[in-house]
């Protein structure tokens, strides 16, 4: 096996551990924003699609890459937008003292 591959597996394992530890600490209060935020971050797959659509190696790759960019970008824009909208609504009680 190539050393690249081993490095990638290390990255995967460490990222999974970090993911569990960080996400375990997210309060159940914010589980819906958590899901929409991780969904937006996951749309970083758009970088792979940009390279496909930009390289234009074959027509198939360009077409699939272009559709993939559309799908992922809508997740980036929509995901961050709705997460921020939700988080803005969470207020502590002192803001509405009688």
């Amino acid at each position, binding site marked *: 096996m190539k050393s690249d591959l081993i490095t*990638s597996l290390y990255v995967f394992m460490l990222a999974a551990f*970090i993911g569990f530890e960080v996400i375990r600490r997210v309060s*159940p*209060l*914010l589980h819906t924003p*958590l899901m929409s935020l991780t969904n937006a971050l996951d749309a970083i797959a758009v970088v792979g699609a940009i390279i496909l659509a930009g390289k234009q190696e074959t027509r198939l790759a*360009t077409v699939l890459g272009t559709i993939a960019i559309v799908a992922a970008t*809508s997740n980036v824009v929509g995901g961050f937008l709705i997460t921020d909208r939700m988080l*803005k609504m969470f207020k502590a009680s002192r803001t509405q003292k009688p």
Partner: protein
Amino acid sequence: MTPMVGSQYVIQLTYLIATGLFILSLKWLSSPTTARRGVWAGEAGMLLAIVGTLFYEGIVSYQWVAIALVLGSIIGVPLGKVAMTAVPQRTALSHAFGALCVTLVGTAEYYLRAPNVPRFTMSVLSLEVILGSLTFTGSLMAAGKLQEVLPQRPITYKGQNFVNLGLLAIAIGIAVYLVLHPDAMYLYPAMVAIPLVFGVMMIIPIGGADMPTVISLLNSYAGLSAAAMGFVLDSKLLIVAGSLDGASGFILSVNMSKAMNRSFSNVLFGAFGQVQPAGDAAQEARSVRSATPEEAAAILSAANKVVVVPGYGMAVAQAQHKVRELYDALTKRGVDVKFGIHPVAGRMPGHMNVLLAEADIPYDKLMDMDEANPDFPQTDVALVIGANDVTNPAARSDASSPIYGMPILDVDKARTVMVIKRSMSPGFAGIDNPLYYLDNNLMLFGDAKQFVGSIVREMTGGGGHG
């Protein structure tokens, strides 16, 4: 390996910083006070990585990239502005889009590289494409069920599990064959098509009440498929983002399954939702006490401590804003009001918290199940609005009940329980609730929004408006 050129280093550096920002983003999300900072960190990382990628020198034309980025943004804006009640279906739809992106990129990569695909690359590519395509159709189905354009009722038939597992096994078989013989290009379309069908079949037997678990599970698959794509493209950034998403979906799925006392396989392979045959005939004779809005208002006003237990029925009746008015009226009288929220109160994890936050209820008044349960014995009134099964004491005591063992909110331990409900008909899972026959329980029959509205009028002005 070809040596990296200058711009390559810069791009890799933007990816490295983006990776760090993504992790910080989730770390800051842990508390409502820092959560918005988390969104900004995520946005900054995303922007940096996308701009960095645009400098990739292999790009020969920006035409399609630009069109697609603009089009995606145009679609994304309305998806970011949906109503809070529609967030579950929006989330399912975005899992579908994410999975679509991953599947398309995987497919393009296969045809660019075939027939000479190294075995490891082919393995992760197969994983990427199989998970991606089943998540794509599965999430579309879930979104359709949540939006109620598809029937929410589970559809089951004999041999369903056999058919589903058979489909999955065939897809995996093809993947294994392709790993050994990557030149068998005629098989590739089948490896995409069969999981697409499986995704549909997987969601058909799943009912509305199981949606929180299913959405979380699909979230996890979407993340794992993106991580697999990271292996194919040798992108560490994608591996990290995918694993974070996968881990998050996995944790949420485990939470949701625990909250319903069911295993993953039970959610996926054992359709819930069928109406149980009525247990003992004795319950017919048991009596139920009910109260009017005036009586309810009097009891609430006399209380020191009230815990409101909202369920999805509250959101269906659009009663959250009336509930806020009730919260205000009681707080003004010095009553301590809190909310006890079951993990599956809503159609996705945490959904109820968002709906209550939207109605301007401070988040420090929202308690999760573990915080709320020790409070009930000291609570004067537990007010249940649109929730049923999550308050069913049979889950604690009756081993023959289909929900036996499911963690519930112990509202029956409060001094008085009031349940707002349209009628005595059983809830979503079709299970009778013995809570309603207890001596300390009062039924408030009516529509949640109107009933809460009447209580508020009683408390604030003696019903002067008529």
